[in-house]
């Protein structure tokens, strides 16, 4: 198992500490994982408005223990994760320990420098994530969280507070996708990146604020139900080339009736089960076509369409444009 312990700091410093511990060089604020640990990269970009964003895409070859000590600073990390093949997850935040043996985790959460954070993930975990780092000063200066916003800021600063967890809805996934799709050669690379990062942050803070102020909102269901829905969502987006299990099967996994499953899922993710699968599938299609590496036929086949014209129709329905025109 690879273990890494450090004191909370900004992303650039973190990247250098991690690189030193792994024995790999940092080039242009980017590192490649050594073979024995995993395959993939970690990269940091400093945005013109003072935010730091760290993103990585990797597959682990051995378990990884991440341990972050609290520090005197006043930093925040907003993290968005898309994870696959995670078998068990144990997270410790301050004194709270969360263990989950059925963990299939995709979500967003905010942590701060006032609490310790530790987690262990198993080998073969595959994922990508986006971490946004900001400070109290940044909230004052750039986010302008004064007056009405002061209250929001106070809520963010509570030490050791429970993680502000959000499920990864389609709107988040779309923004993440746009960030990972963005090429450094884009003439407005940093501006586009900054705008997407800011939209992620806005969306998260907006939801966080709504939940703080409106008692009746939130997901209006038990934590356990939310967790099960995250699990179901992960099954739906696991492999776009294979039709998702039937609702009866999903209901069995979620240990609830089909009706309850359908309603609960829709409440959190805003779309019906199949609709949600289909939307993600089309997003994947767009991404593949965008990469210019695949023909329309290849994309259709990869996404499990036996009949190409069905793919064309589905794509047109989603984006109002034919895949061939894309």
């Amino acid at each position, binding site marked *: 198992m690879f273990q890494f312990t450090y004191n909370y700091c900004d992303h650039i410093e973190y990247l250098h500490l991690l690189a030193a511990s792994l024995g790999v060089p940092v080039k242009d604020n980017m590192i490649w994982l050594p073979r024995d640990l995993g395959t993939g990269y970690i990269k940091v970009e400093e945005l013109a408005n003072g935010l730091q964003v760290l993103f990585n895409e990797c597959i682990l070859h051995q378990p990884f223990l991440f341990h972050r000590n609290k520090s005197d600073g006043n930093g925040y990390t907003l993290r968005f994760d898309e994870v696959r093949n995670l078998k068990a997850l144990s997270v410790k935040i301050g004194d709270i320990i969360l263990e989950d043996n059925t963990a299939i985790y995709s979500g967003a959460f905010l942590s701060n420098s006032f609490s310790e954070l530790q987690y262990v993930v198993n080998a073969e975990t595959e994922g990508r994530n986006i971490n946004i780092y900001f400070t109290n000063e940044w909230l004052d200066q750039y*986010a302008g969280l004064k007056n009405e916003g002061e209250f929001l800021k106070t809520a963010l600063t509570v030490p050791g507070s429970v993680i502000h967890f959000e499920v990864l809805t389609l709107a988040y996934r779309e923004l993440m996708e746009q960030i990972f799709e963005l090429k450094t050669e884009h003439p407005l690379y940093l501006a586009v990146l900054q705008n997407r990062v*800011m939209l992620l942050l*806005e969306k998260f803070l*907006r939801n966080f604020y709504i939940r703080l102020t409106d008692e009746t909102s939130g997901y209006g269901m038990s934590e356990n139900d939310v967790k099960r829905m995250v699990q179901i969502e992960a099954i739906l987006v696991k492999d776009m080339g294979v039709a998702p299990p039937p609702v009866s099967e999903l209901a069995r996994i979620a240990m609830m009736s089909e009706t309850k499953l359908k309603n609960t899922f829709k409440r959190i993710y805003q*779309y019906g089960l199949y609709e949600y699968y289909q939307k993600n599938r089309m997003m994947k299609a767009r991404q593949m076509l965008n990469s210019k590496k695949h023909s329309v036929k290849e994309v259709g086949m990869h996404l499990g369409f036996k009949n190409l014209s069905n793919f064309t129709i589905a794509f047109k329905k989603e984006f109002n444009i034919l895949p061939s025109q894309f």
Partner: protein
Amino acid sequence: MIVLSINHKDYRLLLQDLATITGLSYNGGDFIKITAPTGSGTIKMLQLFNELNVLLVDAVFNEALIYKRPQSDNRYYVLHFEDLYISGTTQSMIDDELLLKTNTHHALVRLTSNIFSFSEELPPGLHIQSIKILFDEKWMMKYLGLSSDTSVLQKYLSLKTESFDIEPLDAGYRKLIQEIWSIPQNDPLQNIYLQNRITMLIERFFTRLHEKADLVGGIFNLTQDEMQRLMQVEQSLVNDFSEAPPTIEEFSKMVSMSSTKLKKSFKEMYGNSIYSYYQKLRMQKARELLLSGKYSLKQTAEAVGYINTANFITAFKKQYHVLPAKLLVV
């Protein structure tokens, strides 16, 4: 006649100048109310934390308005988003080039700079709806990685008045502008919200400028006159949704262009075919009406030209993937 002569970057000073000239009351704050006899409406300024100066104008002046910026070496840029129904004539002058626009709908995005002197004369009674974003070279380098030497930008600015009609205010811009105008008061996230919409407007303009780099180089096969005519088509399309728009044949007659050329050029300029563009904006309008909370589903459907509410619901769902009734609850 109101004459505003500006050689600074401070919109607060501009509001002050306007108050001094017209005798309107102004307390040094973020906005000025235009009242009789000067006119009506408001002008609001925003200073965003990433050093952008923004002016939001929704006003009518009872006198002609002249706006002048001299050429200066302390370089800065203004990105204008304008939606004007011109009755009478507006005059714009960039350096030594004069552009007149008479009785037309002007819905455009354009970038000006004080590399050249600039002046504009607007006739009395004109309803001015615009957003102006001012930034300097330093900002442009820092946030967009563009300098005044960037060739795309140089080409664009050197077109002077010819650059005016290159970028139409299309559905994508309109959506962001609508969101900026409809910001709720006391929103604790107001700054982030506005900042994000404003920077998205800027991103869109510059992204499209890059995409159209060929056009700026002169390879584009539409003349300025043809672009004007296409804007006329766009204007009739979005004018009134309660009635069916003219047919392609009627449009084709109206702007004296073959229907094939019309369809092709419209798509080139606005990125959508005529009908899908119309439909997009129509649904956008419906969404706006529903969110205002003042209209029922049926009223909204009628306002955007649906006699059959069920058809409206289907069309709305198709675009927004949500039933229109859901927006009513909010």
